């Protein structure tokens, strides 16, 4: 302990030498900031802190600069000064780890205010709780000294030697972090902090939870590391395991540290209703109080010497309990029981040994078991081995599907080895194993034998919050670092965060070639072109992973990452290559050479060494195929097109829906869910599927009797956008835009070219990349969803690109963020004049679904994804919002009717609903550059959540494609349908326009002059929404914004135009409003009854300056805390 303090003192330095190392047992100050070192400090939220003249000063905002050390009772001392009378800042104490959210400190900790001029709370205040007795701060520019003492819930604030505040806190945490605020306006910086130090005081309140001392047990046998884990199936409640039940699985677990996750728990194949029991011993080294922290989902109990120490058994109460026990050095019997019901599972045990300020996990040697204890337990090991390696037989579509030779995805080899843009490539005879190639770091993240992917994830088994990982035994891994270099020294990752591409000139993934079973990846390192193909050769039980690498000539050597430093794994290189150890990994150096060469690298378990040697011998390398010859396409794989018969709509109306029956049954069990659609010039269509395929549909004619479906490509990363340019297919996956080449013209792609992969991808399950459109200049656009948390609220990792509309130049070389602030924008449209539209889904900062026009730089409403500093307080007003009950809970894309063969709607915008499987006519107008409009639903039903549409090049009709994920009324997993104009008269409202005193509605047909002018036949109501960080919004009255109600709007007059097609409704009042519903029950001149509703938004009233409520400040739920 003493040593530790000395070290702290040495590392951080002690200013002025004023505090000597104190005697054991006395409080010792910890210097958090000494003028130079900001180790342990982090910025949460907007802005940042810099060091200026030895002091910390923040700008931007509002954010929090916090220190990761946690304190219970303490004295915090620091100096601060302001350079501006109105400067505003504060010191936060006792808040939990804020991650990236400064509001955690506001809401959960306390702020000691710095601001002499603030209206409610001034310097010395406990912000929003208690004002100081006096303002004791010195004049602007002079240094002040704060001494903040916090004991239990009692706060004493001393400023420049005067106690200015004594405060007893209500229920706030009794421990936590310390942080400084950067509160705007902070430009130029106007508050400075220095000499930040904390003296931790001995805790007082913990005695209550300390238990009676326990005595060590007398354990004589040999102890080995790890606990014996027993896993029981079908256990519905904690402690409900029958006494004589045999476990389903027994294994040694080094630690109990399983973070919250969905699906399989700790590689046990168990997900729900199971119990884990860990038994063994705890080795204690120091005498004194030991605190055990047990966190679980669902229930758990910790026993020491058969006594319950921590009980997480009560549901609905915080499942995160701790207890302190007095222990002596020695060994104690330890048992943890853990039960998981439905849903995610988690079980973590940490401890604090005497003197620890933070809870830690157990280091090796603390958790032990009696040697052989695991073998004494009876269980069905043979059965387990069968299950473990069994081919998937769940019958589920994601297990049945043949995904092709590889699958691109975010692949989690393990917790610390996530490949954001990975390719899982099947290798070996009979697909004996898999390797995962990382297309960003150009490394093999790992290799495993016994299976492919565990099919876990949103596009597979539907699980939220997870990504697929190995389904087999991982043989090797490599660290998630830059896996290559031109030269012989590893390069460090320049990106700051582990997303997005590395500099192109360093190296770049170019694409992959398919040739028979073989996948050949193509990339550059520096100026060197490289092709390589992974294979696996089994030597008995052990697999040798082999890389065959073709390098073009280069005058620089090339460094390639091979594998971790792992004693169980061996690496062999073919002659001429040199091995290197660096950064905890093993590397291969390919020398500079003047001609193309082929090399081999083998990675394998020690046992297969003899065999591996053979494989990398020069003879073998010479015999390796010429990889350049594999780039021109090999034999076709999916040779048999599937034929289906379409179904023509029978409706006796102007529009009817024809179905291009999808080949749900197909030889590859490919799970079809359409996410991209476009046409070739010859009338054939191409669709992409969420599970990774591209199919080409031919035979699209009037009758649809002989539709042919041919599988064209596979293994793409959730491709939800497809565009055909010059008859070449471009597909947007989450990882990249891929351009396809079919070199040998066999109807299948042989080259999956990386057209552009600049878009950052994080492991968030919800980061869908939607749609692919082009403007008249040939630039590509797509929309990327926000990293929504599992459950729909809030966000996971925010990158530079999630929640944006993104643009890629025609040649694929330039990538830019075009617009920001979208949440789940499942579809776009680009129309005449390059009008760009995007839909969005209700959720956080999206009070209801909305349809927006996008310009470069647009901010579309999701504050957390604005990528703007300062955070915007207004968003681009949308064309309209759409209420989730009546209209849509989940928007699709848009299409412009560029056809003149589709009834009276030429050059009109159509919008789709994924959630309610419906199609809308959009009417909008531009008023001083601000759009406003609304939608009218076509009375048509679609079989899936339609979200993509194109105009068929031959028949000029509207084709829609869609899928069923979740939250949709879809009855089919996939639908490709045609909305056909039958030539009959269209009888519906067509356009409408907001007038100073009402609304003008034009119909496609003349109206009956009696019913049209009867105001009784119209109903208008309106309501507002709250733009906030909540999930969606209730519907609020305009008249009384606190009431959840719709306001009726009196229709005082209805007038009909001379041509009887246009009605002018005079309304009692016309105001900007977020949502209006105009219902009409009128008759056409020929007596047909019509009942339609328009759902629209008014952003501006012609001739009035008032703007919509939605353009004002965000109605944040944190309003109370905002200064």
């Amino acid at each position: 302990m003493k040593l530790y303090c000395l070290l702290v003192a040495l590392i951080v330095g002690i200013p002025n030498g004023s505090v000597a190392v104190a005697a054991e047992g006395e409080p010792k100050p910890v210097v958090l900031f000494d003028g130079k070192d900001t180790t342990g400090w982090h910025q949460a939220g907007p802005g940042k802190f810099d060091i200026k003249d030895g002091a910390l000063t923040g700008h931007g905002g509002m954010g929090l600069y916090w220190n990761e050390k946690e304190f219970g009772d303490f004295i915090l001392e620091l100096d601060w000064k302001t350079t501006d009378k109105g400067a505003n800042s504060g010191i936060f104490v006792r808040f939990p780890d804020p991650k990236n959210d400064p509001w955690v400190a506001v809401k959960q900790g306390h702020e000691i205010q710095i601001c002499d001029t603030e209206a409610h709370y001034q310097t010395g205040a406990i912000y929003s709780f208690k004002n100081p007795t006096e303002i004791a701060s010195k004049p602007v520019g002079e240094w002040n000294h704060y001494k903040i003492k916090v004991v239990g819930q009692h706060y004493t604030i001393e400023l420049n030697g005067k106690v200015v505040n004594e405060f007893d806190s209500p229920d706030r945490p009794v421990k936590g972090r310390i942080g400084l605020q950067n509160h705007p306006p902070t430009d130029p910086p106007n508050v400075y902090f220095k000499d930040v130090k904390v003296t931790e005081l001995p805790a007082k309140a913990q005695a209550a939870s300390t238990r009676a001392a326990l005595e060590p047990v007398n354990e004589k046998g040999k102890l080995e590391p790890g606990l014996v884990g027993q896993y029981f199936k079908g256990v519905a409640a904690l402690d409900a395991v029958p006494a004589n039940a045999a476990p389903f699985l027994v294994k040694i677990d080094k630690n109990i540290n399983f973070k919250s996750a969905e699906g399989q728990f700790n590689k046990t194949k168990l997900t729900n209703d199971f119990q884990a029991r860990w038994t063994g011993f705890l080795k204690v080294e120091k005498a004194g109080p030991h605190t055990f922290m047990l966190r679980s989902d669902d229930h758990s109990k910790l026993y020491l010497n058969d006594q319950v120490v921590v009980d997480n058994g009560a549901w609905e109460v915080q499942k995160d309990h701790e207890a302190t026990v007095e222990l002596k050095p020695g060994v104690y019997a330890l048992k943890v029981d853990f039960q998981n019901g439905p849903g995610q599972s988690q079980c973590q045990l940490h401890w604090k040994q005497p003197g620890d300020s933070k809870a830690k996990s157990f280091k090796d040697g603390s958790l032990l078991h009696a040697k052989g204890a695991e073998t004494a337990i009876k269980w069905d090991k043979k059965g387990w081995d069968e299950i473990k390696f069994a081919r998937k037989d769940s019958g589920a579509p994601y297990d049945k599907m043949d995904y092709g030779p590889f699958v691109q995805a975010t692949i989690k080899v393990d917790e610390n080895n996530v490949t954001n843009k990975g390719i899982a490539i099947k290798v070996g005879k009979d697909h004996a194993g898999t390797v995962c190639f990382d297309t960003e770091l150009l490394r093999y993240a790992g290799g495993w034998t016994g299976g492919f992917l565990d099919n876990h994830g949103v596009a597979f088994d539907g699980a939220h919050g997870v990504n697929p990982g190995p389904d087999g035994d991982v043989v090797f891994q490599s660290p998630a670092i830059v896996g290559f270099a031109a030269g012989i020294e590893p390069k460090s990752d320049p990106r700051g965060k582990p997303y997005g591409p590395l500099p192109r000139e360093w190296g770049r993934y170019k694409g992959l070639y398919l040739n028979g079973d073989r996948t050949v990846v193509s990339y550059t390192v520096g100026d060197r072109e490289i092709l390589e193909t992974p294979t696996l050769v089994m030597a008995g039980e052990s697999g040798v992973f082999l890389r065959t690498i073709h390098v073009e000539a280069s005058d620089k050597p090339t460094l390639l990452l091979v594998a971790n430093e792992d004693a169980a794994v061996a690496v062999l290189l073919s002659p001429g290559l040199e091995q290197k150890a660096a950064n905890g990994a093993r590397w291969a150096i390919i020398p500079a050479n003047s001609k193309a060469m082929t090399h081999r690298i083998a990675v394998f378990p020690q046992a297969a060494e003899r065999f591996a040697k053979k494989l990398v011998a020069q003879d073998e390398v010479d015999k390796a195929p010429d990889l350049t010859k594999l780039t021109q396409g090999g034999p076709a794989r999916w040779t048999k097109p599937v034929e289906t018969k379409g179904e023509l709509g029978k409706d006796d109306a102007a529009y009817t829906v024809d179905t291009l029956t999808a080949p749900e049954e197909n030889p590859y069990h490919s799970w079809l869910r359409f996410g991209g659609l476009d046409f070739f010039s010859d009338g054939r269509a191409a669709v992409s599927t969420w599970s990774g395929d591209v199919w080409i549909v031919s035979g699209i004619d009037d009758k649809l009797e002989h539709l042919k479906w041919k599988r064209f490509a596979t293994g793409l990363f959730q491709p939800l956008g497809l565009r055909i340019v010059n008859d070449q297919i471009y597909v947007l996956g989450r990882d990249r835009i891929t351009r396809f080449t079919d070199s040998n013209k066999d109807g299948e792609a042989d080259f999956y070219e990386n057209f552009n992969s600049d878009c950052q991808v994080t492991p968030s399950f919800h980061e869908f990349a939607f749609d692919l459109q082009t403007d008249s200049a040939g630039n590509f656009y797509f929309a990327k969803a926000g990293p929504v948390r599992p459950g729909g609220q809030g966000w996971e990792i925010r990158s530079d690109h999630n929640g944006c509309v993104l643009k890629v130049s025609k040649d694929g070389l330039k990538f830019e963020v075009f617009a920001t602030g979208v949440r789940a924008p499942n579809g776009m449209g680009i129309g005449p004049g390059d009008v760009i539209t995007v839909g969005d889904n209700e959720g956080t900062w999206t009070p209801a679904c909305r349809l927006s026009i996008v310009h470069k730089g647009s901010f579309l409403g999701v504050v957390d994804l604005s990528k703007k500093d300062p955070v915007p307080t207004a968003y681009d007003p949308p064309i309209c919002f759409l209420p989730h009950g009546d209209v849509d809970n989940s928007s699709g894309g848009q299409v412009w009717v560029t056809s003149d063969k589709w009834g009276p709607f030429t050059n009109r915008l159509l919008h789709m609903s994924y959630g309610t499987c419906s199609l809308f006519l959009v009417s909008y107008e531009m008023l001083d550059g601000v759009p406003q409009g609304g939608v009218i639903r076509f009375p048509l039903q679609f079989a899936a959540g339609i979200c993509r549409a194109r105009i068929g090049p031959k028949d000029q009709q509207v084709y829609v494609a869609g899928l069923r994920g979740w939250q949709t009324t879809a009855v089919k997993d996939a639908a490709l349908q045609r909305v056909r104009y039958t030539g009959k008269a269209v009888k519906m409202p067509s356009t409408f326009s907001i007038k100073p005193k009402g609304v003008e509605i034009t119909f496609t047909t003349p109206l009956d002059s009696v019913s049209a002018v009867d105001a009784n036949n119209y109903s208008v109501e309106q309501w507002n929404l709250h733009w906030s960080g909540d999930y969606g919004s209730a519907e609020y009255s305009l008249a009384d914004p606190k009431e959840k109600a719709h306001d009726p709007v009196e229709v005082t007059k209805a007038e009909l135009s001379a041509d009887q097609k246009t009605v002018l409704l005079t309304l009692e009042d016309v105001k900007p409003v977020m949502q209006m519903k105009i219902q009409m029950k009128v008759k056409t001149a020929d007596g047909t009854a019509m009942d339609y509703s328009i759902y629209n938004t008014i952003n501006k009233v012609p001739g009035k300056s008032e703007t919509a409520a939605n353009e004002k400040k965000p109605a944040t739920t944190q309003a109370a805390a905002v200064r």
Partner: protein
Amino acid sequence: MNAVNEWVAKPVVAIALLLGMFCCGAAIAQAQAAAPAAAGALAPGLKLTFTSNGVMDSRPARLIALSVPANTPPTPFLQPGAFTATWEGLVNLRIRGEYTFLPVGAGGVKVLIGEKLALATSGDDFTKVKSEPVKLTKGKNRIRVEYTSPERGDAIFRLYWSERGAAEPVPPGVLTHDASDAGLRTKLTMHEGRALFGELRCVRCHVDPYPGAMEKKLEGTGAMITPGMPELWKDAPDLSNAGARLSERWMAAWIANPRALNPRAEMPRLFKDPQPAADIAAYLATLAIPIAPDPRDSGAPQVVSGARLYANLGCIACHTPPDYVGADPVIPARIPHEHVAEKYTRKSLRSFLKKPNANFLFVRMPDFRLTDAELDALVTYLYRKPTELLLPMPQGDVDRGKQLFAATGCLNCHGPLESQPAVRGASLAELGKFKALGGCLAADPASRKTGPDFTLTQDQRSALAEFVAGDTTSLRRESSIEFAERQYVQLNCAACHPRDKQDDVWSGLSKEIDALFPGHASEESNGKQFAPDQSRPSLTWIGEKLRPEWMAQFVSGHVQYKPRPWLRARMPGFLAGSTNYSLIAEGFALEHGFPARSPDLPKPDQELAEVGRKLTGKNGGFSCVQCHAVGAQKALAPFEAPAPNFAYVAERLRPEYFDRWMMKPQRVLPGTRMPDFADSEGKTALKNVFDGDARKQFDSIWNYLLEGTKIQPPP
């Protein structure tokens, strides 16, 4: 804006009016709401007038529906037997429409819109009538519905209408009536007086001439009710061990002025001076080993989990937290918790929370089935207030207190129900004769003399006076519709549940909850798997929706599972110690025009059930399993909209409601996450099953759901 819209925009006031006039059972709670309505003011619902044997009674009704079991009176002021019921008021529409009225039931029925006869039929089965559509205009339409019960047997009547697509009961949201109607006001005064008479336990002192009423034996531990007003058997807290539960200091303050500590107190103030209160408290404290409040510690970690529970279980919807400062924005005012630590010991508080009805069967506090850990957390939280707030009281004298306790009639209420009152007030017959506002009904302390002070409003005093001069035999009769409505107010259902256009109290308290439990908002958004909507079910259609047998079990806390397991809220058990809870369920059923008992669940048609199973699945179905759990199978991807388990649907829901719900959920519960699968033509997008006929498809699903807990998920 017209008058109709005014009440639409101001539901709080409107509902208060409705409660004040009809649900006068909450007279004490609702004192401020009982003001007479301004002339021409509109209130929700219709005026419903009953006539039987030349006697007439009126009250408002939310619905055009009614069920009166044989041999029970349609209202307490009428005798059982044949009757007519007439609903009058306005149907308010936002757009004109053509509606077909569709009656269900037996007897005779006539529907008039304005002067126009929209429907007239009679017989054993109204559904046989073929009715023609009627034009209703935008805005107000006068409606009059006359229903004549059958001569004998159960009277059942529900009025549905349909515009396009499926029929629905005429929704309460479109109905209004003239709240100032003189005939209605007169009758409501009687209802209110009667309710107050029961609620305030008047019968405990003014017992004559009703020896019969008090002779009824009690059934087991529960009060036995029928026939007669259940509140007549309302007990009061048993004080035989008061000293072990309540602090002397608190008892003294309470007796001195109950409503100063709890605005909803039913106990009257008996003394003007503090001394006798202190004396009685001193005596009560000797009734067990006297206790003193425990010391408090404010830093315990359980305070946080207690605050969390206080928010998550909805304590905050009925109570203000111990450290609450300022005026309570909620109407009626919540019961404050500021004195909890001065009232109880930790142990006695824990016992009370664990079994709230241990000493008081009619206690309003329900049983939340709290676990030990929850009890610990809540007790720690409630008990931590560091300051003493009760005003100092004089030293009490035990002997004097004992005497006073007997002489003041405390045992009239606090003694055993079977016992004769120790202190008698005037008999009911005498009270009726006086009609003067003396004694307990006097406005000022001087005329009240020794009468207890119930702090009644002028209207409440006159209502009581009118009632005791009127038909007090009505105490021997009851309509469970009215009882259920009184309990709706008494038990504060609206604290947690929305109904009609009225939001629940709880959902309006998010700011308070944020302050109470600062991590609350982030806890919600950090929800791991789901962050589903936490609102509680609406009670608008409750009597049509739930089978009364199941509802009774659920209301009393006897259902072992949580129908909505994702809710942090928990339905507690109400009136758990009494048998009255079944009357609440019965009352809601009758209000919606359904019999008090529902038929036993039929066996599913296996063939249809198989079709239904497939229809709920992902392959060839609506993929219901995405959001709904099926027995042991979890919902596949519920995201923010988890939904009830299929295994429990059939035992909970009436088939009539299920049908209506499935055909158009957005119409039944606007804004629900349950999507509409049927279009306005009654077709679904699944054309290959029953030709897309939604009703047939949903009927198959119902048959599948009838498998109940044996249900197997679709393939």
